[in-house]
């Protein structure tokens, strides 16, 4: 009992040690002095309550775990439902339903909602791209944002210096990012697991620092602004067209409405996401998709069968980077501004979190996770200071209750029909 008491006491103390400096103190600036205030009695009471709860929890640890064990071991969803939901066919229908909904609702939604949906679609695109690398080929890539940056800057630079339009730059940006993926992947893919993760993390940062310090070309930390928006077959969505161009509303004889632009951007993003969905769906059923799976399972056996591991990994890396390039150039077009600070490591972490949260290899999972990851912070603006804290808590909870992700997918198997 004495030992338990000691442990419980320390646990309660730990709660104070962690929570008090973070939540219980408030800093304010008076002139050049920093003043530390104590928070109100309410916060302190909450912390005290938490520490008491922790004390009891640790003290009665044995009883608690016995109780948990005796409780019926029913998971949240029955295995039958869970199996049904993870079937490729079910997920395909759900995705089809989502696509139809996604096509219709922006015409009724508010401007802000459509704008957020566009952002979500960018992350869906990024998540799907990274899913190829991490989910299908099993290569942990922590520098994915680097290729996103390459795509964004490709469009920004081409538009800024050569005045090329978005639709010409989109494939170029994809190819540029793919080229970078190929070149970086070549030396990196000899490494495995953790080593690969660290090196890709480094490469991601190198690309960002490179863009930041190449002031003459990329504008350094200020980035490039006034990037042209995409056009609809040469029709712009601005109120007034530039010389030699026509506006969308004039051409169709409509009233100018700024929401048209937002909806158009949304539809472009949707188009890109659908393209990614289609490509990945095919990849799963192509020889290269099978080879990724095989390589993830047993590299030695693959080599013994004459499959070149480097080429196969490289193809995954390159394809993933290509999608990041598309997402990047769209991002640049939507924002009208790119700066190196949009491509920090935290972006990589968020994209990876989307893939892991959704369930490795699952497209529907990625879509759901992107919605959760982007929408939650938007809905809970008032808690934005605790964003990272909630982010971490969410990850921990996921690891405990659903380590396989929100909605993992069973791989579609090739069947022998008789």
């Amino acid at each position, binding site marked *: 009992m004495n030992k338990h008491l000691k442990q419980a006491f320390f646990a309660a103390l730990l709660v104070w040690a962690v929570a008090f400096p973070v939540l219980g103190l408030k800093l304010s600036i008076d002139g050049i002095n920093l003043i530390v205030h104590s928070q109100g009695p309410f916060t302190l009471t909450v912390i005290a309550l938490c520490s008491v709860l922790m004390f009891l929890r640790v003290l009665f640890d044995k009883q608690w775990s016995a109780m948990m064990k005796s409780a019926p071991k029913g998971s949240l969803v029955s295995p039958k439902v869970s199996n049904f939901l993870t079937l490729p066919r079910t997920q395909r229908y759900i995705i089809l339903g989502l696509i139809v909904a996604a096509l219709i609702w922006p015409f009724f939604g508010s401007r802000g909602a459509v704008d957020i949906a566009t952002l979500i679609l960018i992350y869906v695109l990024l998540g799907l791209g990274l899913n190829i690398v991490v989910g299908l080929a099993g290569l942990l890539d922590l520098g994915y944002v680097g290729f996103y940056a390459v795509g964004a800057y490709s469009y920004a630079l081409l538009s800024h210096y050569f005045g090329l339009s978005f639709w010409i730059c989109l494939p170029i940006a994809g190819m540029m990012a793919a080229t970078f993926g190929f070149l970086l992947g070549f030396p990196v893919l000899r490494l495995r697991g953790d080593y690969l993760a660290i090196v890709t993390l480094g490469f991601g940062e190198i690309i960002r620092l490179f863009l930041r310090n190449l002031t003459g070309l990329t504008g350094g930390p200020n980035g490039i602004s006034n990037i042209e928006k995409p056009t609809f077959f040469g029709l712009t969505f601005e109120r007034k067209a530039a010389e030699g161009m026509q506006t969308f509303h004039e051409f169709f004889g409509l009233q100018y409405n700024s929401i048209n632009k937002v909806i158009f951007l949304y539809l472009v993003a949707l188009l890109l996401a659908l393209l990614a969905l289609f*490509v990945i769906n*095919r*990849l799963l*059923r*192509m*020889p*290269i998709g*099978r*080879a990724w*799976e*095989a390589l993830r*399972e*047993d590299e*030695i*056996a*693959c*080599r*013994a*069968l*004459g*499959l*070149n*591991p480097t080429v196969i990994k490289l193809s995954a890396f390159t394809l993933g980077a290509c999608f990041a390039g598309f997402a990047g150039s769209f991002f640049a077009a939507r924002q009208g501004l790119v700066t190196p600070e949009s491509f920090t490591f935290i972006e990589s972490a968020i994209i990876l979190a989307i893939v892991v949260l959704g369930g490795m290899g699952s497209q529907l999972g990625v879509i759901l996770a992107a919605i959760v990851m982007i929408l939650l912070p938007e809905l809970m603006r008032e808690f934005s200071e605790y964003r990272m804290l909630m982010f971490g808590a969410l990850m921990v909870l996921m690891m405990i209750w659903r380590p396989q992700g929100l909605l993992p997918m069973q*791989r579609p*198997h*090739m*069947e*022998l029909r*008789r």
Partner: protein
Amino acid sequence: MSREILQVSGLSMRFGGLLAVNGVALTVKEKQVVALIGPNGAGKTTVFNCLTGFYKPSGGTILLDGQPIQGLAGHEIARKGVVRTFQNVRLFKEMTALENLLIAQHRHLNTNFFAGLFKTPGFRRSEREAMEYAQYWLEKVNLTEFANRTAGTLAYGQQRRLEIARCMMTRPRIIMLDEPAAGLNPKETEDLKALIGYLREEHSVTVLLIEHDMKLVMSISDHIVVINQGTPLADGTPEQIRDNPDVIKAYLGEA
């Protein structure tokens, strides 16, 4: 007799201070079945690993059709038609039996990205042919009814047969079997023997095998190479090996 397909001479493999294989030589003729035998730890699997490019041999030459292949990467050697099975079966356990066979045909398939993306007729044909070839071999190794089961759920003997079928998917010239009969019951061993005979007769495959089951080795081999503690001890026909006093001594100890 037929041409020599594989000539190995002076093969040695050193791990730090340990000389695991020292001066092993063997010659394999086309369509022969050659067995590599020896007590446990004699270096048989190391020889296999050197031949298939999983280790870079420290010395010696390996000629395939007169061309040196020592030091090439594993997948390059496999592409030249030398494939192997593993002592402990290495299937893709999460994939179905059929998919295991499809992966091994990767090199012979239409892997053009755009062909696959748009399901061109060429791509469909290539996939269908792969499927048919896989089906043919599934039937040969009696696994047709398990085609859609994941490989990890198959019985051990079935996994062994599937691994051999998977090797055959690559259209090999030499197939190297590392203890194919280990863990098989007498009936399955008989089937294996028939299968090896079939590979040789119908598909003109040369077979090199490591095996401890002497009854099997003596009955199917044309030629036997014995190694002991990494060095060659004897080689010859099954009859010569059976009567060789050195071999008996190595296996049974000093009389």
